[in-house]
């Protein structure tokens, strides 16, 4: 896929996908921190968290070509792990009844950054374990299996009263996430995604995405590479869950279920699911669209006409928006190829068209 010229030239142009993604995140983050009013600051922060989640999903789905509907399970893992670790001890005794081996959690109390590390680690471990089963599948079967994973995690989280508080809202997690630290996490997630896709494993996986059989014949152990990507992406999505726990004033299992899955999958698809800047673009486009729609739902005055759409209109429009993108730009707004300088783009574009 990569032109020989760009392989030799390791300058700015080679790393353009990374540079563009980082610039967009930095620009929005810094502008938001400097100028945005308080409400908008929260929107920017949740946008950064969405970048972490979407980039996390992209590490697996974008590189492997298998759309996962199960990644919000890892978001849940991250969120719950950090709550077990960071909720103040006096509240913990009130909320939880841990089973024997987890007794130590009652007294343990760590700062949020340690919760982040633990959340990422546990989510990656869960990804490794579940992935070693799921990654033996391909295509649509794998997508359905990841959906089953989401369902299983949701059933467990909704019913394991003593440990997850079941359907009740989890409160008491220290609220420390704002634009600054969430932006740092978003940048880290993008860096990890970029390093992975440029790594040997990432390149092999992308080869298998284009043609699984051809890659296998050339010696790529497809399921192994998928497992590597699945584990890394589980860890990154877990980080998104940790951030979410320290950002939202409370959460319950339904925050990590189909609705969130739809939103994050939409972000990945709308921008262009096979490229990193595409995913980042998708996050921003969807966030802006959703925000505008919410404003319209609240009521706005445009050219002297007061528009007040009924509540729920936003979700309908969001679904239609995704459908429109799928119909008219199936490869997303950015398209299938990684961003290049325009002059170098022609060959790549033609190659894609003929595919």
């Amino acid at each position: 896929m990569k032109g020989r010229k760009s392989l030799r030239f390791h300058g700015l142009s080679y790393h353009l996908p990374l540079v563009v993604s980082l610039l967009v995140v930095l620009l929005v983050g810094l502008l938001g921190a400097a100028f945005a009013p308080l409400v908008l600051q929260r929107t920017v922060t949740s946008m950064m968290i969405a970048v972490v989640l979407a980039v996390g999903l992209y590490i697996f789905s974008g590189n492997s070509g298998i759309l996962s509907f199960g990644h919000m399970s890892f978001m849940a893992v991250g969120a719950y792990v950090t709550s077990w670790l960071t909720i103040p001890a006096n509240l913990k005794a009130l909320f939880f009844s841990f089973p024997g081996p987890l007794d130590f959690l009652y007294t343990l109390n760590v700062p949020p950054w340690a919760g982040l590390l633990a959340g990422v680690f546990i989510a990656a471990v869960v990804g490794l374990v579940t992935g070693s089963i799921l990654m033996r599948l391909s295509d649509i079967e794998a997508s359905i299996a990841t959906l089953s994973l989401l369902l299983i995690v949701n059933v467990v989280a909704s019913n394991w009263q003593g440990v997850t508080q079941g359907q009740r809202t989890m409160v008491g997690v220290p609220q420390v996430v704002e634009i600054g630290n969430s932006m740092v996490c978003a940048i880290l997630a993008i860096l990890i995604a970029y390093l992975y896709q440029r790594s040997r494993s990432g390149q092999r996986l992308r080869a298998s995405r284009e043609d699984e059989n051809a890659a296998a014949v050339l010696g790529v152990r497809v399921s192994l590479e998928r497992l590597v990507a699945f584990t890394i992406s589980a860890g990154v999505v877990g980080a998104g869950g940790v951030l979410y726990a320290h950002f939202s004033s409370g959460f319950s299992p339904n925050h990590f279920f189909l609705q969130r899955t739809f939103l994050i999958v939409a972000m990945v698809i709308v921008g262009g699911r096979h490229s990193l800047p595409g995913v980042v673009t998708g996050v921003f486009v969807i966030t802006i669209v959703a925000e505008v729609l919410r404003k319209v739902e609240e009521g706005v005055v445009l050219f002297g006409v007061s528009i007040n759409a009924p509540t729920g209109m936003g979700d309908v429009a969001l679904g239609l928006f995704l459908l429109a993108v799928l119909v008219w730009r199936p490869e997303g707004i950015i398209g299938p190829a990684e961003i290049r300088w325009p002059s170098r783009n022609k060959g790549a574009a033609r190659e894609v068209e003929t595919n």
Partner: protein
Amino acid sequence: MRFVQYVLDALSLGSTFALAALGIALVFSLMRLINFAHGEIIVASAYALWYLRSEWELHWFLATIGTVSVGIAVALIMERLAFRPLRHAGPTMLLASSFAVSVTVQNFLILSIGDDFRSVASPSFITGTVTWGSLRLPKVSILALVVSVLFMTGLALFLRRTRLGQQMLASAEDFDMARLLGVRANGVIAAAFAISGLLAAVLALILVAQQGLIHIRMGLPPLLIAFVATVIGGIGSLPGAVAGGLILGGVVTALQVALPIGLLPFRDAFTYSIVIVILLVKPEGLFGSRTRESRV
């Protein structure tokens, strides 16, 4: 005797699962589309039933016909507006687009109807239970079993005995070849959607008769069960979908009986784990063929 009771329970449950799975499998066999929005057809039909029965106070027979028409219409509209333009997308993108259709329709329904519970009174001849010795069966379960078997037989006859049915089977086997031989793609796919809409509406009737309640999210549990059932049977295989539904009925009944009280809330987690196990042992499902796998 208790065992017979379990078998009857499992059959009644499994036949409704099979009905749900058939609707998914039929569309998949032709289009490689796993239709997430199938649940929304169920919900829309259920609301139509509520409207016809509780608002217009129609006779149950007319209301049934109305409900089924709505189910078919919704499925056909979905096909025409959303899935026809996407016909050449890959299975993954089709799945994502059906996800989008599902969210859109669901929120549209919330917007226009609301998300509160509605109740529909069942006609008196399906309330109550039949006792026979120590066996007890709710009349609704018997109805579900009979209706499901009727529709499955009807579908089988339709596919084997009619021209359109034969064309659908041929297209499921090899779409390009079928088109070369003169099968109209739009026709067979629309027919598949119409039948899946019909099955969804029948399932909605059964569900409302069983639960007496209608809710905007009532389509999700049967949809998820249907996914599991189609995967167990082999995605796209119609006998497989029926078998998968019946097996799941058995599994759910067995888990309900066998699980200790403490684990009972986690029953569905066990049910969904079965999909993963089946996929690992036989990725093509029990009745699936390996022909979809390209040869190296």
